[in-house]
């Protein structure tokens, strides 16, 4: 067991303990709080569709299986985990994203009892042909619900046009056809590969004591078998498949998702690269940028406009989303603004204000145990530590921003548009 203490003079302290079985445990004590938030997660998400655990061939599994596994893990031979949490009053849930599956609870009493339940059910898979078949119906409904969500489709349409091979372009829940191929044996294979503790993490923030939490976790470990996982690589270049895609939906006005595909030599982005991208977006299209004013005053965007650095293992995209009567004009304006900043330089007064604001945001995140835990998960999956942002912000220079902007190439961009059903194609 190896424990590292991280401290910041303003923001507090937390520990990262790596147990002998390889499980990483992040704990931040918040003694003044009434509640606690805990996650037991695995570095396993929808993009992990190709893998091997020895020198043999890669195994390919159906799309959506990580999410399917998440649904099934709540069940056991004796009943489901929700019922066990209901007895304590805790709120319990789970989620699957591209690179992680997380099981969580929050509570304001009986924390250690809840932690025992979490440890137990995540380590107790129970899949049968019958229960798998029943879940196919429920998840099919969930997939159909997302098919009706224009905000969800506009993004996946963009990713499908952007990525040739990377499974980030596939809906996290898979498709009705792909989940039909899932059976109990495949679920066990994925579980035994990715739910080994050396691939997992526990993140906790709240009114807890670190030593008591660690004792509880150590006594709750069921299987300390380590598995070495090799994930299949997906070859991607800077090229996109199509620069424009559209779909019709029953929406009030067109919606868009416009993204620049980035290409890097390494699969995972560093904390520095992520923080710099955040500042870049504030300068480029934040709500006191010249671009935001131009787009708003000309009636091209509304309060739905947002931007994001969307990245994970093997993919990275700077993207912009919103509603607009003319999405192509918005995409052109973004591209023009990038060229203008590259030509004229960074507004240094705005850069300093953006850094001050990002610092304020970093302080604010420590007011919420949920936010702290979500940031711990980022650290577990992507690297870095909780206090990175504050130190990194100070170092960002105008040249860093310009260097990042140079990575955004028009030929690597995709505009995805959702058109109202009665609107002509643009």
């Amino acid at each position, binding site marked *: 067991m190896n424990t590292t203490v991280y401290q910041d003079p303003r923001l507090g302290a937390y520990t990262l303990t790596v147990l002998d079985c390889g499980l990483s445990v992040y704990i931040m004590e918040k003694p003044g709080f009434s509640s606690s938030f805990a996650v037991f997660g695995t570095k396993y998400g929808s993009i992990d569709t190709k893998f091997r655990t020895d020198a043999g061939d890669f195994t390919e599994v159906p799309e959506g299986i990580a999410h399917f596994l998440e649904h099934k893990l709540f069940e056991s031979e004796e009943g489901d985990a929700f019922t066990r949490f209901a007895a304590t009053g805790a709120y319990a849930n789970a989620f699957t994203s591209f690179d992680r599956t997380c099981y969580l609870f929050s509570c304001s009493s009986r924390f250690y009892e809840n932690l025992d339940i979490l440890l137990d059910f995540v380590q107790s898979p129970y899949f049968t042909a019958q229960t798998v078949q029943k879940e196919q119906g429920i998840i099919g409904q969930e997939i159909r619900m997302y098919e009706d969500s224009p905000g969800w489709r506009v993004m996946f349409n963009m990713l499908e046009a952007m990525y040739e091979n990377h499974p980030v372009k596939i809906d996290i829940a898979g498709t009705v056809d792909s989940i039909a191929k899932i059976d109990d044996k495949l679920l066990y294979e994925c579980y035994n590969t990715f739910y080994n503790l050396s691939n997992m993490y526990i993140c906790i923030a709240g009114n807890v004591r670190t030593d008591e939490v660690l004792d509880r976790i150590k006594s709750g470990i069921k299987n300390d078998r380590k598995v070495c996982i090799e994930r299949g690589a997906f070859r991607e270049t800077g090229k996109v498949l199509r620069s424009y895609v559209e779909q019709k939906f029953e929406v009030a006005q067109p919606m868009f998702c416009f993204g620049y595909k980035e290409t890097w030599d390494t699969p995972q982005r560093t904390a520095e690269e992520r923080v710099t991208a955040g500042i870049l977006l504030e300068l480029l299209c934040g*709500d006191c940028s010249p671009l935001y004013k131009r787009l708003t005053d000309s009636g091209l965007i509304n309060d739905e406009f947002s931007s994001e650095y969307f990245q994970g293992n093997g993919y990275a995209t700077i993207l912009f989303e919103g509603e607009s009567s003319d999405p192509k004009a918005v995409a052109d304006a973004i591209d023009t603004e990038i060229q203008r900043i590259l030509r004229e330089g960074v507004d240094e007064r705005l850069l300093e204000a953006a850094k001050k*604001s990002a610092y304020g945001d970093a302080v604010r995140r420590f007011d919420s145990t949920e936010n702290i835990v979500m940031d711990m998960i980022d650290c577990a999956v992507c690297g870095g530590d909780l206090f990175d942002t504050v130190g990194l912000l100070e170092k960002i220079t105008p040249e860093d921003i310009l260097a990042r902007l140079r990575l955004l190439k028009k030929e690597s961009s995709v505009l995805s548009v959702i058109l109202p059903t009665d609107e002509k194609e643009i």
Partner: protein
Amino acid sequence: MSIKTVSLGEGAEGLFIENERFGTTLLSLHFYIPLSADTISAAALLPYLLTTCSREYRDYTSLNFRLLELYGAELSCSVTKSADCLHIRISMSVINDEFAFDKESVVKQAAQLLLSLVFEPAVENGAFFASDVEREKRKTIERIEGEINNKRAFARTRLYAEMFGDDPYGIFEYGTVEGVKALDGKRLYRVWASLLKSGFIRFQVIGKQLPDGLFDEITAKLEAVDRGGITDVTSVTPLAAAENPRDVTEHYKVTQGKLVMGFSSRIFGAGIRSLPLLLCTDIFGGGPYSKLFTNVREKQSLCYYCSASSVRGKGFVVVDSGIEEANADKVLQAVLAELDEVKKGNFDAFSLEASRKSITDTLMAYYDNAAVLDSWYGMTVVSGGLISPEEMADAVRSITKEQIVAAANGLQLHTVYRLLPEKEGAEE
């Protein structure tokens, strides 16, 4: 945590909720005005206008820059229907002074900015500027029209419209497209003036310290307004029971259908008195131990989601579900059958205890979230008394099965709204 209440004049009060656990301070102004079809569009647009410019910060770029300088202070607003009132909230969240680089008084500066936005807007000759009004009108119309993009929320909005008829509660909280189109700077100025004159006002501060003189400052500002005819925040017209439930179906280009059911309730009001309705709804269709989750979703696999929620202030319950079109009637019958079970008292001690624990556990977690605490105390304006989450939790523990069964027997199906896929080959 301690609470200090101060009168800020007629129909206005200040609340300082001392909470040491946060690194930020939340300051919020809550206005309550009568819910009316005539003013809802103007009143709903107003907070958006007030939070994008002011006399000092003439455009949103300069205002937003000021917020960045205040360490990314978060300025936000919301409009919600609360019983027979429209509740307008404008808030500012800012880091505490101890986190500022040179320990400057950022909380005080943020508070003054918030007050200046509300009391010193960008106006001229008794009107807001046309350019600001037109910009916010466009955004509000897009907000109203964009409701259809989220079919689950849209189906609920449509149910309200069908269920409430002439009661303005049935109007979407942002008003109507026609109502917004008819607005101009003068009309909005009049609504702003009446908000300050007759709106019930609550100013809340949640944080470590109350900035010196803040409540005195707002009292002086309100004294300068000729306050009178204050909104009666206790008035509630509950949803009346329907003699015959209505069943409305509409078709849209969707893959999955939505079935939303509205029930009138004999119990209403957001205070402790209506807690049996809260528990009844939770056991019926709230948590994973509820009838709808365990039977309709899990055992019968009839829908991906199927849940019930109560709007106690107005006295009604809504069940919403995502369904296959072919299952619509089956789900409807299954939901009614589960409600009958609750009415007959056919729920076990485990469900009752799970519900009590879930609700009380959630209430105690409110203390860890400034925005939730702010909503909670804002809600106490219309619920008839300042009550803490802890006091509410204590009251929940004492609700009996008999009270819950009685609440269930006060529920009556009022309106069914079905949003279903268009038939193949049907004209648009």
